[in-house]
């Protein structure tokens, strides 16, 4: 509870300190993607290498709803959430038939398929030009035209989604996911229908990713083809591992650092991924629990001192 309160305060004051509301909004939407990914890897132990699929589906659905149907923003976002969840339930149901690394490869393969569909289906997705001119309608009579206002709107939605994830982690359902992660065979032997839990976890993860995509679509009034590409999927994996998969907070922290670094370093030096790669290797090799694990250790030490 205290951590969540600190998070809310940080999110609330961020625009006063760093004056780039677009960047901060991106931290939040990317953070939600990492948190959704972590629900599968950190809790259930399934590495999904295709999370951008659901981000992209959500972004395209929200964009089409706003462009074609002039839907209210909450409805567009709800559509993104449901579409992301449905896509993930489908991908999940097929991917979990693969054991171990084959399951990972299936999420990867479905992402590649989704990318090519998006690339070809220009009338819906704009192909490699992306979708432009996506409106950002008022919500309950409040204009979100201003970037800071849109930041706060996004913050409200993402914090609610994050609170839901924290709640799910503590739920009986979350406990079953950890049982599957620890020992799938035994989970089955004590009477859990493991397959159903896995598909449900995928659907939840996909719904949150779709929501993130939906929020991103209005940020720059633009959905690039990158929203659904494998680079984005890879970045989600990297950010979550960097932050640490032991906690949803870790995923959020990793996404924040990743977004800030990739934005600032890319201005300084075009080859910034090289530095980032080294940092990433160091974290994976020496700090398995990620940056969040390190901060937790420090705070425990401080508490003992």
């Amino acid at each position, binding site marked *: 509870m205290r951590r969540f309160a600190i998070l809310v305060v940080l999110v609330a004051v961020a625009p006063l300190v760093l004056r780039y509301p677009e960047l901060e909004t991106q931290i939040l939407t990317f953070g939600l993607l990492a948190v959704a990914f972590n629900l599968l890897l950190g809790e259930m132990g399934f590495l999904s290498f295709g999370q951008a699929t659901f981000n992209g589906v959500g972004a395209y659905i929200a964009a089409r709803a706003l462009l074609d149907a002039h839907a209210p923003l909450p409805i567009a976002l709800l559509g993104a959430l449901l579409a992301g969840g449905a896509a993930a339930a489908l991908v999940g149901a097929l991917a979990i038939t693969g054991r171990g690394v084959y399951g990972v490869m299936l999420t990867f393969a479905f992402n590649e398929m989704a990318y090519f569909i998006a690339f070809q289906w220009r009338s819906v997705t704009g192909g490699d030009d992306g979708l432009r001119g996506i409106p950002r309608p008022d919500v309950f009579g409040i204009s979100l035209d201003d970037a800071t206002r849109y930041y706060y709107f996004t913050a409200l939605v993402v914090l609610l989604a994050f609170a839901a994830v924290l709640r799910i982690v503590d*739920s*009986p359902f979350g406990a*079953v996911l*950890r049982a599957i992660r620890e020992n799938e065979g035994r989970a*089955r*032997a004590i009477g859990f229908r493991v397959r159903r839990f896995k598909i449900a976890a995928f659907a*939840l993860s996909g719904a949150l990713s779709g929501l993130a995509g939906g929020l991103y679509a209005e940020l720059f009034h633009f959905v690039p083809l990158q929203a659904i590409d494998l680079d984005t999927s890879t970045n989600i994996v990297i950010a979550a591992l960097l932050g640490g998969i032991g906690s949803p907070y870790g995923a959020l922290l990793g996404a924040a650092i990743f977004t800030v670094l990739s934005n600032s370093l890319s201005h300084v030096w075009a080859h910034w991924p090289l530095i980032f790669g080294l940092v990433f290797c160091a974290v994976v090799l020496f700090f398995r629990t990620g940056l969040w694990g390190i901060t937790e250790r420090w705070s425990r030490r401080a508490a003992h001192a």
Partner: protein
Amino acid sequence: MLHTRSLTKRFGAHSAVDAVDLEIRPGTLHAIIGPNGAGKTTLFNLLSGELQPSAGTIVFGDRDVTRLDATSRSQLGMGRSFQRTNVFPKLTAFENVRLAAQSRTGDSFALWRRAASLDGANARAESVLAEFGLLDSRARLAGELAGGDQRLLELAITLATDPVLLLLDEPSQGLSPQDAQRLIDRIGTLSARYTIVLIEHNMPLVMRLAGEITVMNFGRVLARGTPDAIRANADVRAAYLGKHVSP
């Protein structure tokens, strides 16, 4: 309570379990013994649904469960423990047992409740841990418990699912004599309340606890009967028992 008819499992040309008829009566402790490679664990995997038989039927109560998977059989009340300790290593002892109890509550898809607030499952986990003398270790990770305690936890998980039939696969395997004794006492108490099928190598244990014994050799049933009858059976002695049991 549990019967099999001509139960067979072939791996290629080899029959690991060959036309086995079993009859487990309610309230008995039925031991399955036999030399290594006799097909005992394969038989168990067939009974619990980890493996599908090549031929034959399995009836539990009055229900044909031959084609049901392990999850369904568990939900019907067939609780199984494993030869190799098979726990959730990075979850606490309490969480291990609580999950097993939770699997009977129907609340496992409740996203909005807190696991800590499932009173029924928590109480069940407490009482099972207490019964196995593991309450003091409740907050420790299962994978960090001592070997004997892990074996007890293994049994506790199975019991927390509230089974009517217990399938115990070599529960004393790998235990020190003291720990084995502790476990034997525990199984003795359980046999008053449950129907138990037990695979076990520890002959003194089998002879003391079992009401009925089935002896397997080369995938087939070699003999069945009371411990006294088995002790006296010449085939059994020739195949297996001579070196373990003094007359």
